[in-house]
């Protein structure tokens, strides 16, 4: 049957045309197409890898930053704490000093007051004694101005003596 018998002329033509087509397309089409595709794929892969690397670098940078921040925060906390204790210490010392000074001053004042008091009392005593002496003298002078009165006094003394 003709349908199933390949024509020899057609076989030859097909072989020639197909082979030529393969070679032509290889040179003018598949070569450039495949190399361009490959180039693009390599490019995409490289950019993806670069992006990935940038991402990981960014992440490490971020974690570094965070670490630094954390350290700084810790340091700040320590500094604050130190400052606080120092301030407290200073305050405490100042308070102690003040109380010491004030108590000393009070003591001094007390002592002075005591001394003054003593001095004043002594002075008063002297004054009183002097006054009494004056009074006594004046009394004596007035009472013993005459014989009778002198005698009465002596009598009285004597009476007192007798009583004793």
């Amino acid at each position, binding site marked *: 049957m*003709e*349908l199933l018998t*390949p024509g020899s002329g057609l076989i030859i033509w097909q072989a020639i045309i*197909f082979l*030529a087509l393969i070679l032509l397309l*290889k040179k003018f089409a*598949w070569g450039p197409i495949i190399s361009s*595709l490959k180039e693009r794929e390599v490019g995409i892969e490289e950019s993806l890898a670069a992006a990935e690397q940038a991402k990981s670098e960014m992440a490490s940078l971020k974690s570094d930053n965070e670490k630094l921040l954390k350290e700084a925060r810790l340091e700040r906390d320590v500094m604050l704490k130190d400052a606080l204790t120092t301030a407290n210490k200073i305050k405490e010392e100042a308070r102690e000093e003040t109380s010491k000074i004030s108590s000393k001053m009070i003591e001094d004042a007390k002592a002075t007051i005591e001394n003054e008091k003593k001095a004043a009392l002594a002075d008063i005593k002297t004054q009183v004694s002097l006054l009494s002496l004056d009074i006594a003298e004046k009394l004596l002078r007035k009472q013993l101005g005459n014989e009778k009165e002198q005698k009465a006094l002596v009598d009285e003394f004597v009476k007192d003596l007798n009583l004793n």
Partner: protein
Amino acid sequence: MTEKPRLNKFKLLIVSLLTFVLLLANTANIFASDPVSDPEADQEEFNPSETIVHHVLDDHIWHFFDGHYGTLYLPVIVYSSEKGFDFFSSKNFYDDHHNMVEYKGYSLEHGLHIVGDGHGEHAEGGFLLDLSITKNVATLLINALILFLVFRAVANGYKKNHGKAPKGIQAVFEPLVIYLRDDVIKPNIGKGYEKYLPYLLTLFFFILFGNIIGLLPGAANMTGNIAVTLVLALFTFIITNVKGNKGYWGHILSPPGVPMALKPLIVLVEVIGIFTKPISLTVRLFVAITAGHIVMLSLISLAFIFGSIAVGAASSLIVLFINLIEILVAGIQAYVFTMFSALYIGMATAEHDEHH
């Protein structure tokens, strides 16, 4: 912004309409009556099988439609052992009334073969080679030209849009090329697949374009011709056996794990297997494409057998549907041929680490 989608829709509509018209025209064209037959042929009894076979076969003329300019007379190139090369138009085989005549001692038998010895007599044992540019050869050339222009344009797209996204025709074929490379050729061949890319890509697009061209009105059943599919299969056969490595031949000539007594039988089967592969490739494509054409022609023949317009309308609709299926088959057969070729090449070149 809203203009563009509408324009695209419009384009799509135009394309669909054109496709529809072309498909209908195809069905109408097929049964435009033979230029070979004389005017009284219409009165002759309609012979569907003869008409159908005639339409799927090769021809020395290319008939598009009836009338004075509807037929293209293709050049005849013939070589005979006695007269050497001869070159003339196939119009010389037809007289003014489309009757077959002899020319330069050659004659077209059944409108297809050149017979004769160059002296008007049949000489026994005379060698004759018909190298005419037949309908199929012309289609081969057109197919090759289209392939070359299309893929050169695609390749130029890569130069023009270097470093940019693919555009236009480049964007149409790039996914196909990538699909073939990554999902058909690479997995079947494995390492070193790049070497076979030019052949297999050419093979795929040659068959695909050829199949689709074959569906156009008035076109030749080129990829449904056994000579064409045979040559394609022979290319795969040659590559497979030339590139076949030690493991491949070892498996054929000394199959491992087979008892000594069975070895001759298995080797025989394996050797036959070398040849059944290209035969299956040849026959599969030939049958798939030719069968599609025959089904369509048969359905249209119904209209002429029943002589009814209603049957014609119904069968035209069915043929339209089958034509769409044939477009699908065009892709599937191109894929299958390429896939099996890649598989055979892959089997012959695989590094045999595993032992069965």
